């Protein structure tokens, strides 16, 4: 459905994303893993058309997304990493803005917005201005905004950031339920447990390049590791985390 072929993005001559290919298919959830600065968000921004790749292409149903970005985005839901919203709007007003820009019928918005906000537990805060929201509340508004128009492709970039435990569990079930309804989903996250529970396939990114691209089960088997966390450590961590932590603790105590 949504495919990226050999994506490369260079900033000031340095490749931040180097030869990354992804294929999102209906009903599939792909986990996108990598340490900080590995190029996850840059890839996501290229997939959504917010930035153009230096080379490579992104196609939606076989057509480059740049040919008709508007049409592509009609089918795309996107939860960005940073919850930048209009602070002077209330949660309801923000979702109404998004819904109206997406040309959704007013009656649908009237029913859907309170119901979605209620499902995520912020119905009481729907009339408060977003400037007073916590990070988790903003994240919930972003999730509602991304799903308001029933998209075919959903890209989550660190969706669990700031969410409480209960909502994280709801989100994981929601992702699986959406996949069951035929949505193609990319789930970019730092939280290995979530990716392990939600995704069938994972792509591990390290310094802009794909370090692994396989099913979670396959990675565990091939690398003879019991969990995705151990697989991830093996693939992308150069130093022993315990030793790094000990060094850091020593630095903290240094006078």
């Amino acid at each position: 459905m949504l495919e990226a072929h050999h994506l490369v993005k260079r900033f000031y001559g340095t490749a931040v994303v180097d030869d990354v290919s992804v294929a999102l298919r209906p009903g599939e959830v792909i986990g996108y893993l990598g340490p900080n600065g590995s190029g996850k968000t840059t890839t996501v921004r290229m997939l959504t058309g917010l930035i153009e790749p230096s080379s490579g292409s992104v196609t939606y149903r076989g057509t480059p997304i740049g040919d008709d970005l508007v049409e592509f985005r009609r089918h795309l839901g996107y939860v960005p990493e940073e919850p930048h919203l209009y602070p002077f709007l209330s949660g309801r007003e923000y979702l109404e803005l998004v819904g109206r820009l997406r040309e959704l019928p007013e009656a649908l918005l009237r029913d859907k917005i309170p119901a979605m906000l209620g499902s995520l537990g912020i119905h009481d805060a729907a009339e408060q201005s977003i400037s007073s929201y916590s990070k988790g509340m903003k994240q919930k508004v972003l999730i509602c905004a991304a799903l308001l128009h029933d998209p075919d492709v959903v890209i989550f970039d660190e969706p669990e950031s700031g969410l409480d435990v209960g909502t994280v569990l709801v989100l994981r079930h929601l992702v699986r339920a959406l996949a069951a309804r035929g949505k193609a989903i990319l789930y970019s996250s730092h939280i290995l447990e979530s990716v392990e529970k939600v995704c069938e396939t994972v792509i591990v990114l390290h310094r802009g390049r794909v370090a692994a691209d396989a099913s979670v089960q396959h990675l565990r088997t091939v690398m003879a590791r019991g969990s995705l966390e151990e697989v991830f450590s093996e693939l992308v961590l150069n130093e022993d985390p315990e030793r790094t932590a000990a060094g850091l603790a020593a630095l903290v105590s240094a006078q």
Partner: protein
Amino acid sequence: MAASRTARRLLRNHFLQRFLDNDLISPNADRHEVLVLLAAALAVPGLVITVLILGQKYVIGIPTPGLTSIAALDDKFLYISASMLVMALMAAVQWDALALDERDTAILGPLPLEAREIGRAKLAALAMFVAVFAVTLNGVPSVVFPLLTVSHFHVNILALVRMIVVHAAVTMGAGAYAFLAVLLLREVLRLVLGPHWFGRVAAMVQAALVIALGTTLLLLPALASNVPARWLLRDDVLRTVPPAWFLGLYEAGTGEVTLTIRGLGLRIPAGLVVAERQARLLYDSLLPRFSELATVGGIMLPATACAALALFVWNNRRLPLPRVSRQRAPGRARSQAAQLIAAAVVPSPVPRAGFFFTLQTLARSVQHRIAIAGACAIAIAAAILLMHGIRAIASPAAAPIRLLALQTVVMTIVLVGVRQALAIPAELRANWTFAMAWNGDVHPFVVGVKRAVVAGVVLPVLSATFALHVYLVGARAALQHGAIGFVLSLIALEWLLRPERLPLTSSARPPGNLKALAPIYVMLLFVVAYNVGRLEQWALRGGMASFAILMGGLILTYAAARLSGLHRRLSGGQSRNPLLARIEFDDLPDTPTQRLGLGEPV
């Protein structure tokens, strides 16, 4: 534990930087660039007025001491008032940054700093801001103006230095007084209303202050003429005219020099002997008044400073807690009424998005509110000038053209302000929302924006002018005039809101060669307004038939403007999809390196 000197300096610098983060045109722009522009904007008007206008007046025009001392009163009043108004205006614009707020709590709260230390650093930053601002504003005139006023007389260097010091001290003191008065108002409101109500009222007070101060500043040249008769001889001057207090201080400080110059025995040209004698008599008669005014000024400045500082310290004795705005959901009846109105005014989704987003942004965003308040100030000043001397009108047909032109002038100025406000992004970093949900066609969104401007700006302005015209020319003529104003507003909107950039999302860019174009546009506005006024005068004299002809012509003009826009849209590529490439949904501001193309990804 007391903060170290370094910590205090860092805190003070942090607060100083916050004053510069509030620029209206280019959020997060390069700070040095903003500083240079701000300094130039403050220093240049004083320099131009002093050297180009007053230079001619004193060096060429007034050769005698008595006439100079009286003429200088007007100019001193102008300097003092300008300093006060600009400083007060700056305080009003910086309203939110005048005291500690929730953001300070979030940033500084976790640090091991006492609230008292943070408050002290904020106060130091305020003091430094006021000082730098006052010096930049008044520095050049303080040196040049005294030199000009004594250019014909042999004054010793000590007397000249005294005049320079007094001018600097009085104008800067007056500016500081005005700044402190706004701070005092803010702190009194905060103390009396409490955080919740203060949060609700503050925005309105800020907008009202910007309008009132901006209007007065624009009318200042007129207000600062014939100062002795207009202000100094009034009975209530001691209570109600703060610039006069500082003029009293000025004269108390330099009066001896003025009287010494008289004693130099200069030869008075024969044609000026009488005028010179009268001027000296007038000045002498004002000396006791100067003394009274100086006393009031001498009391009011420290009293205001003490009160403002005491309240500031009290209100900022602890860091403010985050305020949760508890908005209630609109009631059922209100909600249904809003739905009905929205369904009638903006039935389709995208225009509706533009309609509500525009109203919400213009009403709630500080930057947008200040931009519109500034335009309102200019419009009110223009209206007062146009209204000058108009008292009662015998019949609608006798209405002077400038009264009929007033509505067009006011409306156009306000709409230009709205256009400027719409060019400021509502929140640059939230622009991705539009990028992701955009349907590729600017037109429907702009339709919603225009309707919001009609509902939120045009109709309220027309209501205000309508009330004035009912009083002056009667209800029927006012209704006709209002109808014409409404159609003219629609035409102006078509012209001003051409969808080249998406309102409230794309970054404002400096308009092309405004220095050359602005005077042309202003002249054009008055030519159009006066000619429309002349046509209206003809229509009012000719009865309903003439009015119908005029309205028909205007409606046809509006229809032509709409058709022209439609034609441009259909033939110029503003069809649905290709347009996206032309709309810039900036999510980051331009930095100087980006503007030079140095930051482009390779």
